[in-house]
């Protein structure tokens, strides 16, 4: 394959000739260390500059002060370290593997079988965007903790590498362009911000603050204390909103052959893929203050192995929101794309027995659990309504629990476990006999659907008008 035609990338056809990503070893972009350690660099400068400026020794003429020398030494050391790490890191695609070799003292060779690649994400952090660099992150099955990271390639090269990895992973011709994505939904930033602000963890402290201001008039001491704590909580939640806004800015979701694509981010742009087969559960969330507007949020839970490692914490953040905010109709339409034939509206008999009102007084009004031919549904929540939908094909085990208090009310909980890490469908407060029936039926249907997945209805509904 040494005389290989250059792969045709639809995004950048004019440059494709220069960027064949072939079998020979390649290095990452020379500016990679600067992007990788950019944050540390900025941190050092932020710490160093004021402390140096305050040094009285700076104004003497007998050479540089010691601290400046130390800081410069640190920078040089870091620079040399970064350069060496860049020098010894190389990668190639060969023998059905993505091979990455790195490490100067402790050599590390990572081989990711192309057939096991589940998704290839392109992530451009802010500093990388200034320099025109992007990271290619390969998510593979069975190695949740160890992703193949190519940080960094040029912004033009990254999509080409991505397309090539995907093509090879699917056993297609090398030059096959990335499958075209069909845009599904785009979230207006003007909708995202108010929606984020309307979440109860933001509005509750505001309401507390208002109450505190009112209380100051009546009892200044108590009111001031409440105001102080409300301000603290408010600052924390404001940071949370800013972070969520930064992450989900300019959010758009599209559908490609291999899964749904998410493009999002203000400072750090992410282009992620969630393969359909990897989705273990979907959650429809309707926060309390969103209900007057009829908004909903969709989240997914994807399969992964061990997540205990520190390094995977970032990957854990990846792709958990399917749509940050949409009208309920749009959210349900999107749900139907991801999980065909799922109906998250409970049938009338899905509620718990009325005696459970005392067992779960705060969430009784939302509790519901039911199952169909393809999915198990469980709705819970006290102020925020959240419905978890688990495909029967993905059920790993079914468990029934009943504690002493539950037995007093003759109810039991049925948990449906999946390989996802975030939630399990938990049918709380079911009648004892019904819970046993659920365990029996769900495990039976899960068994059947593993053998022969139930057929899909052929109709695909059109997108409802924006609400």
């Amino acid at each position, binding site marked *: 394959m040494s005389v290989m035609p250059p792969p045709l990338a639809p995004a950048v056809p004019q440059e494709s000739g220069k960027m064949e990503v072939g079998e020979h070893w390649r290095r990452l972009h020379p500016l990679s260390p600067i992007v990788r350690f950019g944050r540390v660099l900025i941190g050092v400068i932020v710490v160093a500059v004021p402390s140096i400026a305050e040094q009285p020794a700076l104004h003497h003429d007998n050479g540089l002060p010691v601290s400046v020398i130390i800081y410069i030494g640190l920078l040089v050391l870091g620079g040399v370290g970064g350069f060496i790490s860049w020098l010894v890191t190389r990668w190639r695609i060969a023998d059905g593997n993505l091979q990455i070799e790195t490490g100067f003292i402790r050599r590390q060779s990572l081989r990711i079988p192309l057939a096991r690649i589940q998704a290839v994400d392109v992530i451009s952090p802010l500093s990388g965007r200034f320099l025109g660099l992007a990271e290619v992150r390969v998510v593979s099955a069975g190695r949740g903790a160890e992703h193949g990271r190519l940080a960094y390639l040029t912004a033009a090269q990254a999509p080409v590498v991505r397309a090539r990895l995907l093509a090879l992973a699917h056993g297609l011709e090398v030059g096959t362009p990335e499958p075209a994505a069909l845009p599904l939904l785009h979230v207006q930033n003007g909708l995202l911000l108010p929606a984020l602000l309307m979440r109860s963890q933001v509005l509750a402290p505001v309401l507390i603050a208002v109450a505190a201001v009112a209380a100051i008039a009546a009892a200044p001491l108590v009111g001031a204390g409440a105001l102080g704590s409300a301000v603290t909580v408010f600052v924390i939640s404001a940071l949370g909103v800013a972070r969520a806004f930064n992450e989900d800015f300019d959010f758009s979701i599209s559908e490609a052959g291999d899964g749904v694509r998410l493009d999002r981010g203000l400072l750090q742009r992410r282009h992620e893929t969630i393969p359909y087969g990897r989705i273990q559960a979907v959650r429809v969330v309707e926060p309390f203050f969103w209900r007057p507007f009829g908004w909903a949020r969709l989240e997914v839970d994807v399969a992964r192995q061990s997540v205990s490692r520190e390094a995977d914490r970032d990957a854990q953040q990846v792709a958990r929101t399917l749509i940050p905010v949409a009208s309920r109709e749009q959210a349900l339409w999107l749900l139907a794309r991801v999980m065909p034939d799922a109906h998250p509206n409970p049938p009338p008999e899905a509620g718990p027995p009325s005696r459970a009102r005392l067992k779960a007084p705060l969430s009784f009004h939302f509790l519901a659990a039911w199952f169909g031919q393809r999915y198990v549904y469980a709705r819970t929540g006290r102020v925020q309504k959240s419905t978890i939908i688990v495909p029967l094909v993905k*059920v790993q*085990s079914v468990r*029934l629990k009943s504690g002493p208090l539950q037995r007093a009310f003759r109810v039991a909980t049925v948990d449906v*476990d*999946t390989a996802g890490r975030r939630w399990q469908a938990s049918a709380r407060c079911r009648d004892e006999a019904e819970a046993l029936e659920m365990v029996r039926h769900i495990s039976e249907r899960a068994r059947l659907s593993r053998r022969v997945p139930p057929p899909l209805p052929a109709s695909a509904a059109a997108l409802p008008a924006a609400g």
Partner: protein
Amino acid sequence: MTTVVTQQIVGPGELKRLSPRFWLARQTQLAIFWGPVFLASLVLALLVNVSAADLLPVVVALLACTAWLVERGRYRSWGYAEREDDLIVTRGLMFRHVSVVPYGRMQFIDVTAGPIDRAFGLATVQLHTAAAATDARIPGLVRADADALRDRLAMVGEAKATGL
């Protein structure tokens, strides 16, 4: 409720119980803990010249009896059934659990034995699926039974394996 499960999910007589040796092992464990505690309380009651201290051995003995009863209930609550396509495990006295684990979902099977288990020739078989919450564990099987169960499970697991 375990009996209800026996009738509703598992056919009568299908639910296997743990080896009586497991109960012996558990009693040994209890004796190892409560014996010295009881002796210590007895010594304390004899040494300390406070009338309330005389009650201490009685309290300890009552606690030990309660522990013994609870442990016995727990031992009796354990049960498992190998069905055609899944394994059912029941356990728990206060908090009762019934787990259904399809063979096709098993990722690997552990057989472990602690020092007391080994002294009694026992072992614990634990099933792992891709879900972290799956808690199918069968303690107190006779070593040979445990190995046989592991081999059987591994075989059917292989035959019925499905991906994630």
